[in-house]
């Protein structure tokens, strides 16, 4: 029992389950079948959390190497702007092949942005928070230039499918996110890649001396983060069927970092948990949905978020646990630890 309680995923999972139970009672339709696919609050949560899951997934890898990627929101805006601009130029916007090609182009552009971040961090040696701040500031300007300051609307059905479509009774956005999670989990936990990431995060110098291509791995995680952010940007813009370079991915970098931290990954790097990140991202989305569902005005969402962040972060801080809960333990037990 204590081992379950001590698991770092216990509290986030418990809160998530509690929130879902609340939703089960408050929403009229939690999960039902309508028009041949699943429908209801749970499905909305899964669909709505897809962009955040994708961004947070890339962020987890970056943070595992001891870095941070602030540019994800801007990359989302650039990716959505690129895709919508190209699609709006198409003669037939419902041409599946052309739309797929455009999606690939947009993801490639996003990966290129990640490459830029990675090069700044690994080759020039700039602090990650600053290196990615550059693209965060400039990126939204680039997105505005691409869309010429307008909001580009698209009427492409295949593009909209990315966000609102269903496949095998499940939302396509959720399936895309799941595929990404499975892919990354396999790559990091079934190959040595995860170990190498943690090694670079632990100490780049030591891992370079041990023969690990620390520089290449660092660049790679930023490229992956950029590509996933681009994919998230596509889902976001497909959902609203337009490119909004100001609102797309606004402040998502903070939510993503939060999801990673809730999932138990330390910001100093060297260790990461993909399952934790996924739980964290879904928890954040569920929290926003629940606050509205319970009847609290949506303007209070941020307050709830703040309370959850403070509670979770403090509960994960070993110093806090020792200072607050240490007092309840019997004195001799504490004293016995001192000589050892």
């Amino acid at each position, binding site marked *: 029992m204590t081992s379950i309680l001590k698991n770092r995923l216990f509290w986030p999972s418990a809160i998530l389950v509690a929130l879902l139970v609340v939703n089960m009672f408050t929403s009229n339709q939690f999960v039902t079948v309508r028009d041949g696919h699943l429908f209801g609050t749970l499905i909305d949560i899964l669909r709505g959390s897809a962009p955040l899951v994708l961004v947070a997934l890339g962020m987890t890898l970056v943070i595992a190497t001891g870095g941070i990627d602030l540019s994800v929101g801007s990359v989302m805006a650039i990716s959505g702007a690129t895709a919508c601009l190209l699609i709006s130029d198409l003669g037939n916007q419902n041409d599946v092949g052309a739309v797929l090609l455009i999606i690939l182009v947009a993801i490639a552009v996003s990966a290129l942005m990640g490459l830029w971040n990675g090069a700044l961090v690994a080759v020039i040696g*700039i602090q990650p928070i*600053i290196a990615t701040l550059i693209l965060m500031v400039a990126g939204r300007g680039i997105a505005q230039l691409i869309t010429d300051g307008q909001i580009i609307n698209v009427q492409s059905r295949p593009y909209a499918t990315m966000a609102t479509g269903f496949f095998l009774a499940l939302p396509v956005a959720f399936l895309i996110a799941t595929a990404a999670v499975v892919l990354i989990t396999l790559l990091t936990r079934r190959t040595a890649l995860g170990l190498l990431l943690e090694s670079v995060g632990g100490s780049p110098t030591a891992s370079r001396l041990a023969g690990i291509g620390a520089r290449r791995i660092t660049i790679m995680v930023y490229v992956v983060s950029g590509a996933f952010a681009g994919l998230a940007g596509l889902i976001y813009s497909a959902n609203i069927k337009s490119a909004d370079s100001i609102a797309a991915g606004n402040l998502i970098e903070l939510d993503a970092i939060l999801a990673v931290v809730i999932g138990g990954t330390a910001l100093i790097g060297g260790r990461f948990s993909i399952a934790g990140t996924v739980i964290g991202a879904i928890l954040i989305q569920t929290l926003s949905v629940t606050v509205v569902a319970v009847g609290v005005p949506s303007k209070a969402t941020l307050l709830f978020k703040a309370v959850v962040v*403070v509670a979770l*972060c403090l509960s994960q801080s070993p110093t*806090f646990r020792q200072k607050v809960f240490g007092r309840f333990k019997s004195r001799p037990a504490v004293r016995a630890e001192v000589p050892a």
Partner: protein
Amino acid sequence: MTTVDITPETGKKPESPLNPRRRVYRPNAKYIPILATLALLVIMYSSAVANYENFGQPSVVVNLFRDNAVLLVVAVGMTFVILTGGIDLSVGAVISMTTTLTATLLQGGWPPLVVLVLVLVLGSLLGAGQGAVIHYFKVEPFIATLAGLFLARGIALFINQDSIPIRDGMWKAISEYRIPLADGVVTKPIAIIALVTVLIAAAVLAWTRFGRNVYAIGGNADSALLMGLPVGRTRIAVYTISGFCAALGGVLFSINSTSGWALQGSGLELDAIAACVIGGVLLTGGSGYVLGTLLGVLVTGLIQTIIIFQGDLNSAWTRIIVGVLLFAFIVMQRLVTRKVK
């Protein structure tokens, strides 16, 4: 100075010829980022004067301070935090909380001076709370101040989501007051308040024990602790200063626009960080000057002014040019710090 006298006595005479040369070299390297920013500012200004009619008028420079007063005050607080090696993401949200609260309380008929003191204390308290969480519970500054961001903006949105007009007499009087500087050149009180903040901060960092502690902690917090410096007190103090400056920025915002809005100041934390970086404050902490931050704010302000004078460039270019400048300065800083090592 005393260290120079003591070093030879420790028996390392062969190395002593190196010391004087290093001592001469180091300050120069430290000043390079700030001098580069100054040079850039001068080049930008003079080329703008050459290219645009009326750019040379003194009011252009004077208005630079008026338009960027809020950013300046916030960036000064941020400088303290960054000098200790931390970061404060909550400043923009504290501004929105302050403006919303100020406008709401003034609407409710509270005495303006009480409101002023209350919001400034509230901002400082929030900063102090963040500092305490960072120091005592070893939570990353990034996460602790992120929680502060959510909390402050949450409070602001909770109070009121709409823009609230301020009709208070004192606020209006300060807002409409003009200080004549020269023939036809006037400025607003908020610009003066911002400049005074810069001067006080520069003096505190340069000449007080607290200022030296800030630099010491930024250089190496563990060493500072072993030296017996009050690390905890100083660290909490810098976040308190940052919270106070953000609240003051919010007050200036509410004076300038005579309104309060929960979305005011969003994204300002990153503008402030960018201004610090352009001004040569190292994000690893321990190196930088408030005057550099002032130059950083002026550079971004000047870019905006030039874009307004140009007329046919849209605001997207401001972001891109600031990004390019950030890049240039960071690479330069990187080269400079590498040389010093």
